[in-house]
C-alpha cells in the first residue's frame, strides 16, 4: 500500500507556520524519513497523514483512496509517538491488544495476538507488567508492537528515538528497521537526527520553513545536496562562497580551487561544497604547496580545533583566508591538507 501527499498545504490557525505544496509518496515496504530543523513542518506532515489535522489544500491518499476528510481512527495507520503514549493503567498485552479491542476482537484472540506481537519485539516475558515498570527502550518496543498489531496500512514514527540514550538509540534503530522490513509496511519517520535518517531510510525528505527542499536517497542527499542548507543540515561540510574564475577554476576565500565547473560560466557566484572526510591530510604539504601552489589544492595552516571522536578526529584548520574542516582516522598532527578537485561540488550561491 502506498501513502501519498498531493500538493498538500496546511497552516495553523492564527499562525503563519505550516507546510506548503508538499507532494510525497511512500511505497509499500519503503521507509521515508522527514528531517528538518525545529519548526520546519516535519511533524505537521505526520499529523496530516495521521488525520490529527486536515489539509487546507491538496489530498492525502492511502492505497489510492482520498482520506483527507477521514478521522484518525478510520485511516488504519499505526503511530509511534515520541513519548510512546502507552496507557499506564493497562498491562503491556492490554496496551498492544487495544487496537484489536476497539475492533471487537475477542479477549482470548486479542491476548494471543498481543503476546505474539510482544514476542516479535522481545517483550513477551513482560506481557503482564505495567508500562511504568519498563525502561524507555522497552516502552519503545511495546509502542512499536501496539502500532503494528492491527496490520495498519502504514506506520508513522514521530521522533521515536529522541527520548533514548545514544547507545540504546542505535540498538532501537536497528530494531525498528528489522520490524519494519519484516512487516513490509510503508513507513514515515519524522526525526531531527540526520544520522538516524541516513542509516535506516530508503528516501529522505529535507524540510525547511514548511517547504520540501530536497527528496532523495541518503546517498543522493549526502553526495549531491541541492543547496547549502541541505549540505549543512545533512552531515558535516565545508561551505565556502566562491566565484567561477575560468573554466575548471573557482575562486574562494582560501584561494583558487580546481574543480568541475560545468553548468556555470565565469563570473557566476556559487557555494563551494566539500565533505570533511574528502579533505586529505598531507604530511609533505609544505613542499607540495610550494611546488603546486594553492591552485593545486594544497593548503597549510594552524589547528584551530582538534576533536577526538573515537574512530576519527574532526579538525578545524585555519588557513589563510578561511577555515578548512577535515575528518581523519590518522593520529598524527595535521597542518597541511589537499582538497581534491573531484571531491568539490558547486552549489547555488546563498
Amino acid at each position, binding site marked *: 500500500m502506498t501513502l501519498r501527499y498531493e500538493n498538500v498545504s496546511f497552516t495553523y490557525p492564527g499562525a503563519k507556520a505550516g507546510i506548503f505544496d508538499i507532494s510525497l509518496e511512500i511505497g509499500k515496504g519503503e521507509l521515508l524519513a522527514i528531517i528538518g530543523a525545529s519548526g520546519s513542518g516535519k511533524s505537521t506532515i505526520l499529523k496530516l497523514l495521521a488525520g490529527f489535522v486536515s489539509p487546507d489544500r491538496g489530498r492525502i491518499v492511502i492505497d489510492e483512496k482520498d482520506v483527507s476528510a477521514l*478521522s484518525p*481512527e478510520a485511516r488504519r495507520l499505526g503511530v509511534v509517538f515520541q513519548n510512546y503514549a502507552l*496507557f499506564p493503567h493497562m498491562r503491556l498485552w492490554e496496551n498492544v491488544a487495544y487496537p484489536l479491542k476497539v475492533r471487537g476482537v475477542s479477549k482470548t484472540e486479542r491476548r494471543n495476538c498481543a503476546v505474539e506481537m510482544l514476542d516479535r519485539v522481545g517483550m513477551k516475558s513482560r506481557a503482564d507488567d505495567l508500562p511504568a515498570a519498563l525502561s524507555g527502550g522497552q516502552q519503545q518496543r511495546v509502542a512499536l508492537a501496539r502500532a503494528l498489531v492491527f496490520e495498519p496500512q502504514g506506520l508513522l514514527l514521530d521522533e521515536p528515538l529522541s527520548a533514548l540514550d545514544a547507545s540504546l538509540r542505535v540498538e532501537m534503530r536497528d530494531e525498528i528497521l528489522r520490524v519494519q522490513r519484516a512487516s513490509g509496511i510503508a513507513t514515515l519517520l519524522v526525526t531531527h537526527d540526520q544520522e538516524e535518517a541516513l542509516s535506516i531510510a530508503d528516501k529522505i525528505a529535507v524540510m525547511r520553513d514548511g517547504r520540501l527542499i530536497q527528496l532523495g536517497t541518503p546517498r543522493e542527499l549526502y553526495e549531491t545536496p541541492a543547496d547549502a542548507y541541505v549540505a549543512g543540515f545533512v552531515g558535516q561540510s565545508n561551505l565556502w562562497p566562491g566565484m567561477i574564475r575560468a573554466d575548471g577554476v573557482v575562486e574562494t576565500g582560501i584561494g583558487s580551487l580546481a574543480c568541475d565547473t560545468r553548468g556555470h560560466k565565469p563570473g557566476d557566484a556559487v557555494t563551494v561544497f566539500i565533505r570533511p572526510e574528502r579533505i586529505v591530510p598531507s604530511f609533505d604539504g609544505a613542499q607540495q604547496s610550494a611546488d603546486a601552489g594553492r591552485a593545486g589544492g594544497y593548503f597549510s595552516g594552524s589547528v584551530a580545533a582538534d576533536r577526538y571522536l573515537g574512530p576519527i578526529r574532526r579538525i578545524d584548520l585555519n588557513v589563510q583566508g578561511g577555515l578548512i574542516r577535515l575528518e581523519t582516522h590518522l593520529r598524527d598532527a595535521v597542518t597541511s591538507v589537499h582538497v581534491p578537485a573531484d571531491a568539490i561540488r558547486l552549489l547555488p550561491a546563498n
Partner: protein
Amino acid sequence: MSVRASRKALAAFALPGCITLGLFFLLPVGTVMTGALTDGGAFVRLVNDPVFWNGLKGTLIIGTAAPLFSLVVGFCIALTLARLAPKAKTAALIAVSLPLTFSGLIVAYGFILLLGRAGFVTLLLAELGFDPAVVGGFIFSPFGLGIAYSYYLVPRVVLIVLPAIGNFDRNQLIAARSLGAGAARAMIDVMLPQIAPSLVAAFCLTSAVAIGAYGTALALVGTQVNILPLVLYSKISETGTDLPAASAASLVLIAICVLIISLGEAVGRKGKASGA
C-alpha cells in the same frame, strides 16, 4: 540532605490543629453523642418516626443526584479549562470559584430573585407564554434544590478534577484515536480510568457537602422537602422539641458524611498508590 524537625517543634506545629479539632469537632460531637445516648429512647423514637426515614431517603437522593449532576457539569468545565491558555485559565478559574465565597442563604436568595415566582427569568418566560406558577415553583422543588446545590458544588468538582486532567498526557487520547478508537471511546477507555480517583473524590466531597447543606435548603424549600438537616431543624425549633432525637439524627448525618468522605479518601489513596 534532609532536615528533620524535632519532636517538640512538630508538637508545637500540631497544637493549633489539635485544639481546633478538639473544640470545634470532638467536643460538639461528644456533646451530641451524650445527648443522644443519655436518653435511651432517642434512637428508638427516631427509627419509629416515618419523617426520619423520608428525610433519610430525601437526603440520600439529593446527596447522590446533585453531586452526580455537578460532576458531569464540573468535568466538562474542567476539560475546557485544561485546554485554555494560562491567562485565560486563571481568569476562568476565578470566575468558576466565585460561588464558593457566597453563603448558602445568599445563593438561595439569588435563585429566588432569578427563578422564584416573581423572579426575573420566571417573568421573562411568562412573557413567552410559560406558566409562572410552574416555572416559579421549580426552584422550590427537590429538583430545584438540587440545581441550587450544584451552584456551589460544581466549583468544588472543577477544583478537584482540574489538576488530574491537567496532568493527563493528552497524547494518549491521540494515540487511542490513531489505534482505532473514536473520540468518546478513547476518553472512556483511556482518560476516565486514569482520572477516576479524582472523580470519585470530587463526588464524595460534594455528596458530603450536599447531605449536610442546610441554609440553602431552609431558605428555598422551608420544610416542604424532606431531608435530614431539615428534619433535624424541625426537632430543635418546632413545638414538640426533641433534643435527644435531634442528637441521634445528627449522629446519623455525621456517620453518613464520614462514610462518604472515607470512601473518597480510600479511592484517592488507591489511585495514588497505583500511580493513576
